[in-house]
């Protein structure tokens, strides 16, 4: 695996954002889910062909101060500020889960900033007739069962093993709780912050990817995303749950390259 480098950008007067970056070529922004950012095989494969820039959600790494982000709207502006700080006018954006929600918001609020959009099991909707479970009231064993078809697969290790030493355990738990706290700021008590009203504003070519056995965000939500975003394409992969990009890595990669090969949206 490539060793990503860590960077810090002062994106505006209040906030610095840390990123993991690797690869070269056209920039590709990756927005992680509520579990936090880890350099995984999917990102590594993307970095083989593109310059991958993966920001930590404010509050989930050392430079980022979540108290400086007021709400979801503020967060979206901070990510535009990050693109400015990177001197990137328009980027292709991949987002997973909560990151998929933020990616959709970026594309909907300012269609000129997102060239192509790939949303992997995005959050942002809530169907009372098909409710997603509460990720903020979940034991870690339940989480593994909900995000993986096979909770015993090696991928489960990415969800985090507990170190032996008590001091290390405290650090790991605080890091995890800090990450979840930051995510909760934008997802509490349920992740619907009105995105469905904004999805039709997305002009960007959009690829949606879902695992058919997703135990966290029901696969039916994918249809709503596809139907609400003009021209969006939805692919549902079998034998995959919420971490579909790891569970079905080659297929998700193929879909990703396909989507990135389509003509980018034109700035209005």
């Amino acid at each position, binding site marked *: 695996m490539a060793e990503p480098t860590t960077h810090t950008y002062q994106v505006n007067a209040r906030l610095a954002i840390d990123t993991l970056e690797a690869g070269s070529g056209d920039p590709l922004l990756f927005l992680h889910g509520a579990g936090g950012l880890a350099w995984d095989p999917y990102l590594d494969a993307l970095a083989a062909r593109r310059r991958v820039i993966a920001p930590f959600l404010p509050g989930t790494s050392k430079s980022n101060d*979540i108290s400086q982000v*007021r709400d979801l709207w503020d967060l979206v502006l901070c990510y535009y500020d990050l693109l400015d700080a990177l001197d990137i006018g328009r980027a292709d954006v991949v987002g997973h889960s909560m990151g998929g929600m933020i990616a959709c918001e970026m594309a909907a609020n300012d269609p000129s900033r997102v060239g192509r959009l790939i949303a992997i099991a995005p959050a942002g909707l809530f169907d009372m007739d098909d409710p997603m479970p509460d990720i*903020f*009231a*979940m*034991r870690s064993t339940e989480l593994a069962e909900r995000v993986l078809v096979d909770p015993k697969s090696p991928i489960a290790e990415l969800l985090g093993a507990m170190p032996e030493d*008590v*001091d290390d*355990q*405290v650090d790991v*738990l*605080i890091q995890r*709780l*800090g990450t*979840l*706290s*930051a*995510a*909760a*700021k934008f997802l*509490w*008590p349920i992740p619907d912050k009105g995105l469905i009203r904004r999805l039709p504003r997305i002009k960007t070519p959009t690829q949606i990817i879902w695992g058919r056995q997703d135990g966290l965000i029901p696969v039916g939500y994918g249809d709503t995303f596809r139907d609400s975003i003009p021209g969006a394409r939805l692919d549902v992969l079998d034998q995959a749950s919420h971490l579909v990009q790891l569970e079905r890595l080659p297929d998700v990669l193929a879909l990703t390259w396909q989507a990135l090969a389509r003509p980018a949206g034109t700035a209005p």
Partner: protein
Amino acid sequence: MKVVAFNLMPYKDLPADFEKKYDSVWVSIPRSLYDPRKGHTYYHDYLDALETAVDLGYDAVGVNEHHSNGYGLMPSPNLMASILSRKVRHSDTTSVVVLGNSLALYNPPIRVAEEMAMLDVLSGGKFIAGFPVGTSMDTNYVYGINPSEMRERYYEAHDLVMKAWTTDEVFTWNGKYNQLRYVNTWPRTAQRPHPPVWIPGGGSVETYDFSLINDYSFSYLSFFGHKYAKKVMGPFWDRADALGKDRNPYRAGYAQFICVSETDAQAQIDYEEHVKYFFAKCMHIDPRFFEAPGYRTVASLRAGLRSQLDGTAKVGKAILDEGFGWKELVESGYIIAGSPQTVREQIIEAARELNVGNLIWLFHCGSMPQHLTLKNLNLFAEGVLPHIRNLWPEWDHRPFWPSGFGDPEPQDTRRSAT
């Protein structure tokens, strides 16, 4: 020492296998377990008991707020306090305390300023206002407040309520969470500048400082008794010293189950079943709801996690899980129980140890039937209360207790002097 006769108003008829069959007494407790006919009887029994406490001359009667909770059946404690204020207004000794309203849950928070002003006027200026931050179960999980906003909302609501109580001009509030063009709460509070404020809390340094700096009385509300409370009251008084505040015991209170009977042996016969009901069923809380991410600050988290992980600090329920009998509950101080003499000796020892002036007495426990509740109230009033009243003769309780209508406003005093 001052004694608040305090009632949680639990549901007394949870099924015998409740803790085995269901996940939680709080947040997800099945609604179908609630029988409104029983609830009707409970409410009136509990109110009768609190009114009896007024007759018996306790210093205050107290109620509090919980939501979706099988042991705390007062989503609106103000409704109960308003009923009690009818009787409190005629009493020479008894005030009414709402401990309290979780400020972050009221939208707009001037609702609290209004309702508490109503209670203050109804009771004749004998009202104590409690402002808890609130538990994660009530605040985040049931009422949906974002944990990242909870403390900010609490502090902003507090500032708004206090300004509403102390400002006689119409003003505009431009807050982060509340924007109000015209703040002008009617009625005014009976007590000037405002009712005494008590801050019920757990063990966070932020809350100690907030209480001390504002000269509010801090109430440590736990169900695990005086020995457990030492962990909190020690650091609280250390903060008082650091902030240059005196050690007036009325700056602090703590909650305690106390069961009085004729003899120590009879206390076990009377109360054991009902105390065990409380600890087995009412403390049966699904750990998934203990704490929303962001509920505790990183500093409190770091301190708490370390002791949880290395096993030096077990929460009360974890100790109970290891098997606690009556003897252990008494010895570990979770309950004070026995003859009037046993009880008063232990209360005095605990109060001196903790340096607290306000005893938040949990006089009802778990499934206690009404006749035992009344027995407890009567025996305490006869055999305990007179012996603990003068525990702190050198300290003035008045900064932390209501004045009532008998205390004229300063400007009235001036007028009558001329």
